[in-house]
């Protein structure tokens, strides 16, 4: 099978995955006790009004019709109308998403950088004091919850040392679609937007806001990468092809990168895909700690409001996101490891 047909097959497999996910989410919301329509009422419920609301929400229809309507809506990008503010859910999620994406990407960068560098170092110094220190570091940071390490980071670097801002994404929030100081929101990724606008001071400001939450979330996830990188590098460097490469007199750099890292980091890529889901979950806590207006904050608000439609929409959106990321990871994997394609 060529790489191209592998990609097509793998991409097509994503569709049933997303369908299944959407179905499960739909069923869970229907199975949960309590009538969503009741949320529109206070302590007293007028049966006639309740029936009216149920009709308006489509809850009086048979379940399979509801399911069909829900799926049709999903394919049109319609995630329903939120109870709390009676606005469509999809645009709300899309406007909150860039903030989370920006945080997730930066955290992943921190996690991979710290994890791979320390993991490789640890495997190269196997059994030494340095190895023990790195492994202990990994266990310790993985056992501290993100909201706690986030608070400590804020206490030290924001409140104590005044080096970095304590929360938020930017010092002066520009209005949606508007511009402040030549800063125009297009993608919603403030780093990209400020760079496109050529507004360097604003870019630096955005970066400064990103550092603490990315470090809090990234370090937590990096523990997984330290472990995986270390054990895989140890295994790979013990392989006969590494000894054979040295026996051919290849440069140590070539042996380490083309033989060691190239093979040892393949499983790390898989973990990256899996941890992406973990990062999204972590983002919920991190965003709350750092007053970060993203999807995490959106979900927390939706849960507080018991807004079923918003929760359902956000969960489906997260699910699609994870499916897409794992698709990308698998394609990358096939590109990097020729054995996968056959």
């Amino acid at each position, binding site marked *: 099978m060529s790489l191209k047909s592998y990609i097509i097959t793998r991409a097509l497999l994503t569709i049933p995955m997303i369908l299944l996910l959407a179905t499960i989410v739909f069923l869970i919301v229907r199975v949960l006790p309590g009538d969503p329509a009741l949320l529109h009422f206070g302590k007293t419920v007028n049966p006639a009004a309740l029936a009216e609301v149920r009709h308006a929400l489509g809850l009086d229809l048979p379940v399979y019709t509801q399911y069909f309507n829900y799926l049709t809506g999903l394919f049109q990008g319609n995630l329903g109308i939120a109870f709390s503010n009676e606005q469509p859910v999809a645009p709300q999620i899309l406007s909150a998403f860039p903030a989370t994406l920006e945080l997730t990407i930066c955290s992943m960068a921190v996690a991979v950088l710290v994890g791979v560098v320390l993991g490789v170092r640890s495997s190269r110094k196997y059994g030494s004091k340095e190895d023990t220190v790195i492994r202990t570091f990994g266990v310790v940071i993985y056992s501290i919850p993100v909201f706690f390490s986030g608070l400590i980071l804020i206490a030290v670097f924001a409140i104590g040392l005044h080096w970095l801002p304590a929360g938020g994404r930017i010092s002066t929030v520009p209005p949606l679609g508007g511009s402040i100081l030549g800063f125009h929101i297009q993608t919603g990724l403030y780093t990209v937007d400020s760079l496109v606008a050529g507004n360097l001071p604003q870019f630096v400001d955005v970066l400064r806001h990103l550092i603490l939450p990315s470090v809090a979330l990234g370090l937590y996830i990096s523990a997984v990468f330290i472990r995986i990188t270390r054990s895989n590098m140890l295994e790979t460097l013990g392989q006969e*092809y590494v000894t054979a490469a040295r026996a*051919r*007199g290849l440069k140590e750099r070539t042996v380490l990168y083309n033989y060691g890292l190239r093979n040892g980091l393949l499983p790390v890529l898989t973990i990256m895909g899996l941890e992406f889901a973990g990062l999204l979950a972590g983002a919920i806590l991190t965003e709350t700690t750092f007053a970060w207006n993203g999807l995490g904050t959106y979900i927390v608000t939706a849960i507080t409001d018991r807004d079923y439609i918003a929760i359902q929409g956000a969960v489906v959106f997260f699910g699609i996101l994870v499916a897409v990321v794992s698709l990308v990871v698998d394609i990358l994997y096939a590109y990097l490891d020729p054995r996968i394609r056959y």
Partner: protein
Amino acid sequence: MALLVVKDLHVSYASPKGELRAVHGVSFDMQEQETLGIVGESGCGKSTLGLALLNLLPPQGKVTQGKILLDGEDILSMQGEKLRQVRGKMVAMIFQDPMTSLNPVKKIGDHFAEAIRAHDPEVTKEEALEKAGTILNQLGISSDRLNDYPHQLSGGMKQRIMIGLGVALDPRLLIADEPTTSLDVVIEAQILDLLRQLKDSLKLSMILITHSLGVVAEVADRIAIMYGGEIFELADVRTIFKNPLFPYTQLLLKLVPNVASKSTSLEWIPGSPPDLSSPIPGCKFAARCPYVFDRCKVDPPTLREVRPAHLVACHLYDEGAK
């Protein structure tokens, strides 16, 4: 001058049970274009010896004593760039398992280009691939295979590729560590034939490490019999087969199954190889030797010439033994 001189080589591994003496006082020398077979059972230290010759021991392994002189230069004192230039260019090595000896994410051609260019950076990748194609053709493999990944080749083909990689840089000495152990008999015969051809056409010196006397009989000029990390007998092939002196060698030769014999069971040597993590006072083979006598258990024999060009370490051949 001898191509390779090994003098009183000792190699130990650090193990949880303490120091494991894998190679214990091994000495031999090799002439240009000679093929030396090193024969012994699993765990006798023959592979360790092979790795030590390239100064390529794993981190737990250490040469504790001795010298390895290649063309008069001590390999064990070499480091970094100098050692790298000897590996592959002067001494090449092929390994037991061709399935795991190639980088799974690199094409065959890249393996060749990498090796050739590591020793001569002025060669372009195209030139290196062209040379690789010629080598593959000599080995009976189509040069189209340069674009294949290792998993697309059979075991026999991979071992031929490994041999090709070994000779790509025209080394003086090729160390083959059990090159046919993981292959079936038909492929084994092909690979041995190939090694013999290369030895003649490239004027290679070769060390063939194996547990099979049948394999060395076909290729080697001289044979060293290893047991428990030491060489116990060293002589030319004919002498070893016609007139073995060391009891272990005699027993080994008896083990080769004979199709014509009426016996229905396979021969074996009672007992097991010595535990190398604890010191053994006398001869290492004493526990399994049918001719053992008192002196064997207390006094380790030394390798010496008992007949012209026939070296044995055994008290049976001492002056006035018994």
